């Protein structure tokens, strides 16, 4: 069970994983003491393969002082039903997923419909770093340093017409590469949507990377949406089609469970879900729970979008 410690492992990644180690130890010692009298903790959960790029993020936090979720957790624990309903299997199953070449079609109610390939997407705008909290509807959350650009930069190019009321996004449909798309429980392909004002909002990101690196397939390579004040399932992955429409799109989760998953899906501790707590959440890498914030803590930025709306009806 012993493992050689790589010289590179000592610092500086230790900075941002040290807290996690402490938390894990705390969890271990309480849980283990219930089961056995003594225990020895090991730290083999930390991947020895180190990347100097990652260390640049070692001391960063989000706007509320929350420490970044480790890279290995973000890339090793995902919801990507196109590959598997398991949280850990997409990492393996998506390993050889082809994201190059990649074409995104942008059309519908716009003046300038267009197609963009992968290289254009990755280079057409200067990429920004945005550290966002990601709150999954299942009651867990992460703090993720995204790389990407605001969706509105694309909107400014294609110029939606005044008839466009919503944006509809679609994930690639390729059951040969995505075995989960053979699961008959879901109406593939994955579809998500935003209202135009949400799409134009500065927080709404088209992400191409995390921790300064390009997205891994299981995180939605080559390009995905990130809408930090909404539940994670709104942040659709591996987009191939962006369409501007005049009617509210029906998302995959709305089709599967209309009483459970609404179009807006704003993070809201006051609107219950039949399975998961929306009042509290587990921050991945930490023990126990924390209280969920209205609009995932982005209330100042986005509350105005929903003024006058009953959020228990428009959930």
């Amino acid at each position: 069970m012993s493992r050689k410690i790589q010289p590179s492992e000592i610092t500086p990644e230790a900075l941002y994983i040290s807290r996690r180690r402490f938390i894990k130890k705390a969890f271990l010692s309480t849980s283990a003491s219930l089961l056995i009298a003594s225990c020895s903790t090991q730290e083999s959960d930390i991947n020895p393969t180190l990347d100097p790029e990652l260390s640049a993020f070692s001391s960063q936090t989000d706007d509320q002082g929350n420490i970044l979720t480790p890279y290995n957790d973000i890339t090793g624990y995902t919801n990507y039903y196109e590959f598997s309903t398991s949280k850990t299997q997409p990492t393996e199953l998506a390993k050889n997923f082809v994201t190059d070449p990649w074409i995104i079609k942008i059309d519908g109610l716009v003046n300038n419909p267009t197609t963009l390939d992968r290289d254009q997407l990755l280079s057409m705008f200067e990429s920004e770093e945005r550290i966002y909290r990601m709150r999954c509807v299942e009651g867990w959350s992460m703090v993720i340093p995204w790389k990407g650009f605001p969706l509105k930069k694309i909107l400014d190019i294609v110029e939606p017409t005044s008839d466009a009321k919503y944006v509809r996004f679609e994930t690639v449909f390729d059951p040969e590469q995505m075995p989960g798309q053979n699961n008959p429980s879901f109406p593939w392909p994955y579809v998500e949507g935003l209202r135009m004002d949400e799409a134009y909002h500065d927080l709404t990101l088209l992400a191409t990377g995390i921790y300064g690196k390009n997205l891994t397939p299981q995180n939605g390579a080559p390009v995905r949406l990130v809408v930090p004040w909404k539940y994670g399932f709104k942040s659709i992955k591996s987009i191939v089609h962006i369409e501007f429409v005049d009617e509210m799109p029906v998302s995959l989760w709305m089709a599967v469970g209309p009483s459970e998953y609404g179009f807006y899906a704003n993070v809201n501790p006051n609107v219950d879900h039949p399975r998961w707590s929306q009042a509290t959440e587990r921050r991945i890498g930490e023990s126990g729970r924390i209280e969920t914030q209205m609009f995932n803590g982005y209330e100042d930025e986005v509350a105005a979008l929903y003024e006058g709306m009953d959020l228990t009806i428009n959930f």
Partner: protein
Amino acid sequence: MKISRIQIIGNLIGLLPAVYILYETLTGNLSADPIRTTTIITGRTSIYAMLLSLFCTPLARIFRMSVFHPIRKISGLFAFYYAFAHFLIFSFFDYQLNLDWIIPEIKQKPFLQVGLIALILLIPLAVSSFKPIRQKLGKYWKKIHRLVFFIAAIILVHITIASKGDIVDPIVIIAIYILAMSLRLPQLRSLKIKSLPDWLKHVNAYLTNKNNAS
């Protein structure tokens, strides 16, 4: 009282998921969300053990093998142990015994209410598994233990609500439950093998530590 081989083997098998959880915890491999993972493993184990216990009575009859009786007791008890561990992880590790969080969740969510009722109903079954209590209960023991049919049924409700989107998984478990129950239909009562092959007699005798195969 002599301990039979099936008791040793059965209890060791029943401990495997707990050993797995302990090992994965100590090596830090319990995924990025250990609370969720352990909640699922303990819940699953409890359901599988309960389903196994439901098959024991019909199988004992069909195959004329007494070894299914100790298996029924062991699997029934492990169903309770893992259900209790499942509850402890929920209340202690996940919700940190914070009643301001736990009570509203239980009030809101029927699947939690159902799970809690099932756990409470399992307590008298587990307690009355001990021989002195079982003997004291006499003919009532059997009646009390018929509760498991109801408990298993409401647990199916619990897991059906708890599973997200994927309908295949709960359907398989519900089908297994229906199979176990249908083996109890009066029409199938006479379903028995004519005579047990010798090797199965030996297996039964070996596992139950009885010299005469029944």
